[in-house]
C-alpha cells in the first residue's frame, strides 16, 4: 500500500552489486537509483485562478501536510486542515506528524515526491542552508501577494508582524513562513519575586546585586540548559546588541571577520561570566537537558532562566498553578546603551515550507494562507500559548500568564526589536560550534577572551568551508 505513485519516468538501472551476484534476472522490474531522482516529470497541480481562488488551487488535488510533533504538538494543524477542507471540499488531505523531519522526508525530497507543506522544525529538522542551496523550496512570494482571507483588499504580507517576512527570506526570496512569533529574554516566576519582594533588575549591576540576595536566600540565581548551553548565548548577544546596536548582530550573521570579537560582545560575555565566577549558576546545570533545567527552575530551585516564548507550553506539565511565568528583557549593561532596556530579540520562528517539487504547490500556498487568517492564528494561539506572526492574531484569545507577559514585552520593545539569524543560516555553527564554546565558557573552563576567540574560530571555519552556501543580511 505505497503512498507513492509509481514514477512515470523509468530510470537508469543501477543494481551493479546485485548484478555481481548474478541475480539481476530475479529483479526484472527493479530499476531504482537514488541518484536518478525522477518523479519530477509531473507538473504541480493547478486550477483556474479567480477572485475566490487567487492562488489557482486545483479543487480536486490532494494535499499532504507533515507536521513536526514537538512542543507545539500536531493538533493545531488538524484544525487548519479542517479550515482548508471547508474551502476545498473535494481535496483529500493527508496529515502526518513526526519528530524526525529530516530522516522521514529527505528521501522523498530526492525522489521528487515531497509533501506539499512541511513544518520543518525541531532538533532533527532538515538543514535550511542545504534546502535553499539545493533549490528545494518554492518561492512564497505569490502567497504573500495574494489577498488575505479576512480582507480581500489587503495582501497577506500586509497582515503580518514586522520582521516576519524577513525572517524567512534567503537571498532576497521568501522561502519559509515562520509562523510562531517568538520573543527571547530572561524568565522568572512572578509569584516568587512578589513573595520575596524582589524586583527584576534593569541594569547588569542590579542583576549581580540581586543574584547575591537570591543566593543568600538559598536559591540558585540562574538555571541553564547545560546540554544545550547555546541558550545562554542568546542573552549575551542580546546584551551586546543593546549595548552597541543591532549592527553587531548583522556582522555576526554575515560571518564578518572578528564579528565575535567586537568589544560589545566581549563586554556582554564578560558580564555574564560573573555568573560563573560568583557561582550564581545552579549546580549540576551543565548535565541537564533543557527540560530538566527548566523544570528545576519551575520548581523554584532557580530564579532566572534564558529561553524563548515556547517555554510556557514546554513546561505546562510541571508548572505550579500560581507560578506566574514572566518574560523580561535582558538587563542593560551600561547606562549608555544604544538601545533601551525594553528592547528584546523578537522573531518569527517555526518554519513552514512548500517544497518546490510538491505535487500541489498551489494547495500548499493556500494552506499557509489559511494558517495566516485571523481564525487560523487565533486557534493556534489558543491551543499552543504561542503567538503567531499574524498582526492582532491573538485578539480575543484569553492569554495565559506567560503569553500575556510576552505580549507586553513585545509591545514595549516595539521598533527596537532586533534579531540575529546566523543559527538559521548556518545550523551547525550555532547548534554545534557556538554551543560547544558556551559549554566550556559556562563551565568555567574558558575566560572571556578564550570564549570570543573560540566563537570567532568557529565562524571563520564556516566562512572558509566552500561546501556551505553563504547568506548576507
Amino acid at each position: 500500500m505505497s503512498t507513492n505513485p509509481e514514477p512515470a519516468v523509468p530510470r537508469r538501472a543501477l543494481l551493479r552489486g546485485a548484478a555481481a551476484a548474478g541475480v539481476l534476472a530475479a529483479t526484472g522490474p527493479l530499476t531504482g537509483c537514488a541518484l536518478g531522482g525522477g518523479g519530477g516529470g509531473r507538473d504541480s497541480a493547478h486550477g483556474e485562478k479567480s477572485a475566490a481562488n487567487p492562488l489557482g488551487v486545483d479543487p480536486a488535488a490532494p494535499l499532504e501536510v507533515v507536521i513536526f510533533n514537538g512542543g507545539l504538538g500536531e493538533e493545531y494543524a488538524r484544525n487548519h486542515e479542517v479550515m482548508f477542507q471547508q474551502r476545498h471540499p473535494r481535496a483529500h488531505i493527508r496529515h502526518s506528524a513526526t519528530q524526525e523531519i529530516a530522516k522521514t522526508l529527505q528521501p522523498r525530497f530526492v525522489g521528487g515526491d515531497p509533501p506539499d507543506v512541511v513544518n520543518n522544525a525541531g532538533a532533527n529538522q532538515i538543514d535550511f542552508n542545504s534546502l535553499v542551496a539545493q533549490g528545494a523550496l518554492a518561492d512564497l512570494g505569490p502567497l504573500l501577494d495574494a489577498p488575505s482571507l479576512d480582507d480581500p483588499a489587503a495582501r497577506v504580507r500586509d497582515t503580518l508582524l514586522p520582521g516576519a517576512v524577513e525572517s524567512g527570506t534567503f537571498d532576497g526570496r521568501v522561502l519559509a513562513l515562520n509562523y510562531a512569533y517568538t520573543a527571547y529574554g530572561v524568565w522568572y516566576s512572578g509569584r516568587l519575586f512578589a513573595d520575596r519582594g524582589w524586583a527584576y533588575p534593569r541594569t547588569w549591576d542590579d542583576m549581580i546585586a540581586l543574584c547575591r540576595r537570591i543566593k543568600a536566600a538559598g536559591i540558585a540565581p540562574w538555571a541553564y540548559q547545560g546540554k544545550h548551553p547555546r541558550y545562554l548565548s542568546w542573552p549575551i548577544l542580546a546584551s551586546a546588541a543593546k549595548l552597541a546596536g543591532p549592527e553587531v548582530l548583522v556582522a555576526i550573521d554575515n560571518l564578518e571577520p572578528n564579528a565575535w570579537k567586537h568589544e560589545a560582545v566581549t563586554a556582554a560575555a564578560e558580564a555574564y561570566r560573573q555568573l560563573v565566577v560568583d557561582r550564581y549558576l545552579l549546580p549540576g546545570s551543565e548535565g541537564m537537558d533543557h527540560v530538566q533545567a527548566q523544570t528545576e527552575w519551575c520548581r523554584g530551585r532557580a530564579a532566572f532562566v534564558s529561553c524563548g516564548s515556547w517555554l510556557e507550553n514546554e513546561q505546562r506539565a510541571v508548572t505550579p498553578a500560581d507560578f506566574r511565568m514572566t518574560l523580561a528583557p535582558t538587563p542593560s549593561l551600561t547606562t549608555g546603551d544604544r538601545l533601551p532596556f525594553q528592547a528584546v530579540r523578537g522573531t518569527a520562528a517555526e518554519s513552514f515550507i512548500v517544497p518546490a517539487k510538491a505535487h500541489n504547490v498551489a494547495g500548499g500556498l493556500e494552506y499557509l494562507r489559511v494558517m495566516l487568517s485571523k481564525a487560523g492564528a487565533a486557534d493556534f494561539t489558543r491551543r499552543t500559548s504561542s503567538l503567531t506572526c499574524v498582526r492582532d492574531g491573538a485578539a480575543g484569545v484569553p492569554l495565559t500568564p506567560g503569553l500575556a507577559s510576552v505580549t507586553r514585552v513585545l509591545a514595549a520593545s516595539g521598533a527596537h526589536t532586533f534579531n540575529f539569524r546566523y543559527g538559521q543560516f548556518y545550523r551547525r555553527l550555532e547548534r554545534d560550534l557556538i554551543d560547544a564554546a558556551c559549554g566550556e565558557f559556562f563551565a568555567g573552563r574558558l575566560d572571556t577572551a578564550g570564549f570570543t576567540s573560540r566563537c570567532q574560530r568557529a565562524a571563520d571555519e564556516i566562512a572558509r568551508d566552500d561546501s556551505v552556501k553563504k547568506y548576507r543580511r
Partner: protein
Amino acid sequence: MTRTDLDHSPAATAPASEPARRPADPDRPPRGDSRAATAFSHLFLLGWAVLTTFPLLWALGSSFKNDEEILTDPWGLPGALRWENWARAWSHARIGRYFLNSVIVVAGSLTLTMLLGSMAAYVLARYTFRGHRLVYLLFAGGMMFPVFLALVPLFFVVRDLGLLGTLPGLMLVYTAYSLPFTVFFLTAFFRTLPTSVSEAALVDGCGHFGLFFRVMLPMARTGLISVAIFNFLGQWNQYVLPIVLMQGEGAQDRWVLAQGLTALAVSEGYAGDYSGLFAGMAIAMLPVLLAYAVFQRQVQSGLTAGHLK
C-alpha cells in the same frame, strides 16, 4: 573443542569417581577453598546483579510515579500504583499498537530469515560450485557494512517495489539485513555436522532436498535456535530501518516498538511527560524480559551454542 549439548546439562553429570588421588602438597593449601574467597566472589557477583537490575527496577518504579515524584525524588517509591501512566502510554502514545506491529514484523522476518539463511548456508557449507567463494564473501562481508550508508538508496529500492510503509516491506528488509550474520554462522555450523550421515542418507535414496529437510535441519537444531534468537533480538531492537521505511500516509499505524519508544523519548523532551515515558519503557521491557525469563535455558544455551566450535 566440543559443543555444549542442550539436553546435557553439566550439572547433571556426576563428578568422575575418585581416582587414586595425589595428596596435595601440604605446604600449599588450596587457597581457593577459603570462605573469604567464596564470600568475595559472591560479593562481586551480587554487586553486578544489583548494577544490572537496579536501573530496570527504577524504571519500573518510575512508571508508577507522577511527574512531580520523578523530578523531585529519584529514590522514592511511587505514592500510588498509577496505572493511568501505563494506560496513557499504551493507548495515547500507542505503544500497544506498536508492540503488536513489532510482533507481526519480527514473526514474519524471523521465519523468512531462518528459511533463506539456512538454505544459503547449507549450500555454501556442503557443496562446491563456481563462484562459491564470492557468494560466501558477499554474505559474510555484509556483517561489516554500516547500515545507514545504505539508507537512502534502500528507500528507493523499497519504494520502487511498492513496499514503502508496509509490514511485508519491512519484513523483507529485516530479512535481507539479517542474512549476513545468519549465513556466516550457519555455514560454520553445517560444516561441523558429520558428513557420514549425509552420505548414508544419499545412498538411501534420499535426494538433496529430502536430505536437507529431513536430516540436516533437525541435526542443526541447536545452531538454528541460537541464530534465531540472535536474529530475534536484532530485529526486535532494530531502529534505523523502520524510521526510514515506515513513512507516508498511515505509516504511523504500522510503526514498530523501538520507533514508538524513541518518538516518545523525543517528545518527552518537548512535553516533559516523564511518567508516560517510563511507562512506555516498562511496556517495552517487560514482555521481552518475561519471555526471556521463561525460555532462559533455551535462550542462553541456544545463543551461545553457535559460537562454541
